[in-house]
């Protein structure tokens, strides 16, 4: 025992997850046992792993060789601050999701809970393995296994054709990405034949090949993260998957793509070009704006959250793009600031988005309804779901004092520093870029008001909602864990910044830790110049004090009498729950302003209709712009190629013979 180092404990945790998964498979028939004993065990391992990650951020780099895999190809693993940080986030998310799953999975799913347990824990183990992989072989193996297990998790309710289709789409795009990654590692290892990351780090690629590697990795990892235009699987897979799985995917599977981009750009490739940064920044902003605009018009609550995930990935990517820009001009301090913002957002998005997805899970279980137009008023029946969801929604809306605000604050601070860039063209673009970021932030709040208001507030739009039951004890534990995470990220950004200082030192060679440490644990500052500061704890304390004082004074000086009666509603005598804004209604102004973002088909009733109905369909424009043409082309090519097939062996022999003849001819030349 004495010789075990940190990385060994992480490997033990990974092995533990695999063992738990197998144990679940053994007990496949005992759903209750699997749910209420095995899943929480996985959650406890999540806490363990998160703690190890936290220690690992402050520990020196550790490497190890595992005697696994093919002969002559041992597994290289390495624990540095970047992987530790992501392990920390994984630990936090997986704990919340595992506890929630304990109350969520029951006999109603098409896949037995034991099998889900195996797939889920394998997926977690693969993600952890991916984070500590130190050669291309282990990395790709973990990557592919993660995609595979995630696909099985998405199609847990496989009796539904739509779900199978969503799983297929996810798998397809994951494989397009994987193809790009294999090519990418191929280029990296081609010169030396050494596929360990240590070997890749040593070589110097010229700018041409480095750019190809960078863009291939952007495609490969972008397909996983959901960057435009490879985001198309997200809005399909998230509603199809069971909610804890959506939570895990949105909170962490997407982030593995971000991890990959960071690892590739700042660790494996040494040089950066400002053009990469510009393109990444533009791509990130386009993704963010597109994601948030589309999420305002969604009517399915999980699809809304899926588009909101696209938005957040876009913001993270914009932060990374800015980091590349700064770092290509050798401005390490500013690069560190924007990278801190991006990494902070990784953690805060993981916390609030998993919380929101779990909230939709409880709503779905208790009402059987995903359509926003048939929900409403659930705050009264499900307070244990509503309040955590409110915290998640406020955090997702980028409002102080939660975590989402801190990352936006840091990102905006790094944009305001930008005038120092030596490229005047880029300097000119910065105001526009900043404008997009703040617009996205404001729209995110719009989306979250829509999400929370329509599901939880107002009157129930259907009668059956009156019987909605609240989340169970395990689900509440999952919620509470993530609520605490959301609040901690918001109130203790200084501690986070000190942690991220270690990561940014590894990646860009500088950090904001010194500035933050000088200010004390209350004061978050972007640098030492004193140009800006934010004290979330003081902010909250004063805000709460104002509210409480107002309450006490009003009640003391005047009175606290109140009476309940019917709503006033401008004195209208008849009003029903159906007169509230629906999801379509709430999104209408945005549809009006951002019309060019969607493909809309509308059917308006004429004045003479006996039974008038109004129909509107809003579609992601990338389907008709990109994917359907590609699918049509692929279909056409294969139908042409199909002409060669006859099913007769004699014809195939003839083909072989002709090929042989042709090749001989070529050789003879």
């Amino acid at each position, binding site marked *: 025992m004495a010789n075990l180092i940190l990385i060994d404990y992480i490997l033990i945790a990974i092995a533990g997850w695999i063992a738990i998964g197998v144990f679940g498979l053994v007990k496949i028939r005992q759903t209750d046992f699997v749910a209420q004993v095995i899943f929480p065990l996985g959650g406890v391992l999540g806490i363990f792993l998160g703690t190890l990650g936290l220690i690992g951020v402050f520990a020196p780099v550790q490497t190890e060789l595992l005697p696994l895999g093919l002969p002559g190809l041992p597994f290289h693993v390495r624990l540095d601050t970047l992987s530790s940080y992501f392990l920390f986030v994984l630990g936090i998310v997986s704990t919340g999701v595992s506890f929630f799953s304990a109350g969520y999975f029951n006999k109603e799913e098409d896949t037995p809970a034991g099998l889900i347990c195996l797939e889920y824990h394998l997926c977690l183990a693969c993600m952890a393995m991916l984070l500590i992989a130190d050669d291309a072989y282990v990395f790709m193996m973990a990557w592919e296994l993660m995609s595979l297990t995630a696909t099985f998790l998405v199609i847990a309710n496989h009796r539904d054709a739509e779900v199978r289709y969503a799983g297929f789409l996810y798998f397809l795009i994951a494989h397009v990405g994987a193809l790009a990654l294999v090519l990418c590692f191929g280029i990296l290892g081609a010169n030396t034949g050494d596929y360990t990351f240590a070997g890749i780090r040593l070589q110097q690629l010229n700018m041409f090949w480095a750019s190809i590697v960078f863009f291939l990795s952007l495609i490969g990892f972008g397909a996983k993260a959901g960057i435009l235009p490879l985001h198309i699987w997200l809005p399909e897979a998230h509603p199809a998957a069971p909610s804890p799985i959506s939570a895990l995917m949105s909170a962490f599977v997407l982030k593995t793509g971000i991890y990959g981009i960071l690892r590739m750009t700042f660790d494996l490739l040494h040089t950066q070009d400002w053009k990469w940064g510009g393109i990444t920044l533009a791509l990130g902003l386009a993704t963010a704006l597109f994601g948030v605009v589309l999420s305002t018009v969604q009517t399915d609550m999980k699809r809304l959250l899926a588009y909101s995930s696209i938005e957040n990935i876009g913001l993270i990517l914009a932060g990374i793009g800015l980091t590349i820009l700064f770092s290509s001009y050798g401005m390490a301090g500013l690069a560190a600031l924007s990278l801190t913002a991006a990494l902070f957002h990784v953690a805060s998005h993981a916390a609030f988005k998993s919380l929101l997805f779990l909230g939709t899970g409880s709503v779905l279980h208790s009402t059987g309804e995903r359509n926003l137009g048939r929900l409403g*008023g659930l*705050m*009264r029946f499900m307070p244990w779901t509503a309040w955590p969801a409110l915290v998640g929604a406020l955090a997702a*809306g*980028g409002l*102080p004092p939660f975590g989402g*605000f801190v990352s936006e*604050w840091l990102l*905006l*601070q790094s944009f*305001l520093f930008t005038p120092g860039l030596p490229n005047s063209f880029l*300097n000119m673009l910065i*105001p526009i870029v*900043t*404008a997009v970021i*703040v*617009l996205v*932030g*404001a729209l995110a*709040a*719009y989306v*979250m*008001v*829509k999400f*929370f*208001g*329509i599901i939880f*507030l*107002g*009157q129930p739009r259907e009668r059956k909602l009156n019987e909605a039951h609240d989340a169970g004890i395990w689900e509440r534990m999952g919620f509470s864990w993530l609520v605490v995470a959301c609040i901690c990220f918001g109130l203790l950004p200084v501690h986070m910044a000190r942690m991220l200082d270690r990561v940014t030192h590894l990646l860009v060679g500088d950090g904001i830790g010194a500035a933050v440490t000088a200010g004390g644990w209350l*004061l978050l500052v972007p640098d030492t110049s*004193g*140009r*800006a*500061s*934010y004290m979330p704890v003081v*902010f909250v304390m*004063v*805000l709460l004090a*104002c*509210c*409480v004082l*107002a309450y006490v004074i009003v009640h003391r*000086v*005047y*009175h606290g009498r*109140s*009476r*309940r*009666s019917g*709503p*006033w509603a*401008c004195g209208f005598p008849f*009003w029903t729950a159906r*007169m*509230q*804004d629906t999801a379509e209604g709430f999104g*209408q*102004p*945005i549809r009006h302003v951002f019309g060019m973002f969607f493909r809309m088909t509308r059917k308006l009733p004429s004045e003479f209709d006996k039974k008038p109905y109004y129909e509107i369909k809003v579609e992601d424009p990338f389907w008709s712009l990109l994917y359907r043409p590609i699918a049509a082309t692929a279909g056409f090519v294969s139908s042409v190629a199909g002409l060669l097939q006859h099913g007769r062996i004699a014809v195939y022999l003839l083909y072989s013979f002709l090929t042989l003849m042709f090749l001989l001819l070529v050789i003879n030349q």
Partner: protein
Amino acid sequence: MNHYFEFFSQALEIIVALVAAPLLTGWVNQCRAWLQNKSAPSMLQPHRMLHKLFHKEVVMAEHASSLFRMEPYIIFGCMILACGIIPTLSTRLPLSPAADAIALVGLFALGRVFLALAAMDIGTAFGSMGSRREMFIGFLAEPALLMVLFSASLITNSTSLTNIADNLTHRPLAIYPSLAFAGIAFTMVLLAENARVPVDNPATHLELTMIHEALLLEHSGRYLALMEWAASLKLFAYLCIGFAIFSPWGIAEAGHPLALILSIPVLAVKLAVGGAMLAAIETASAKLRIFRVPEFLSMAFLMAVLGMLVHFLLGA
């Protein structure tokens, strides 16, 4: 000693805001009445109104949730905090490092979100319509305000409002082209965010056009009083943001009691002028159709972005 003085200035600032905000609303109403050839109500009218409302009993919808009951206090608290952050009387404030301009905008957004959520809580058609419109205006006005503040912070190299006010006071008098654009944008945002005439009309309950009033329909008694007070605090806060950026002179910066006392009449004069100008704008313009509001606000947003762009182009 100096420390105590700073805390004293902070407390004084908040108390002045609480007292002056309803007076400012009364003053604007008075000016508007004069400009429209009506006999004006007393400037104390909003104070009397608050006093009356606090005495009244609250009548609440049967199914109002606890969110609805918390919301007036949260919004009131947000607005007090906002008035505490903005340098109205002094630039030496203990609260100023706690929140900079971005956090201030976040604070307004927090208030807006709670306002919208509480209006949806009752579940009437007007409430949800109001909250949709409020969020709709907010999503364009909020970025515009942030961009205005960024224009100022690029000149002064700080996002802290007290630093901005301090820095701008000590500069030689010069016209900054970026601030000119920002000024136009800020005026437009101020009108939109405070439910003033081209965007909304505070004097009407016509259901097709109302925005802010629709959100308050279900509030009564002390809740309505708190919301009205918060609305006047918001107007006060916005005007003071404008003063801090566009005419920061007279805000006490040295820790001197005399300067602090002097800054109160200076503020009163500024508020009187600002309020009169607001009333003039309101009288001179007609209410826009709700579909034209996005154009109005995108104009504000564009102006604010142009302001920043001009800063980069001219370096000033």
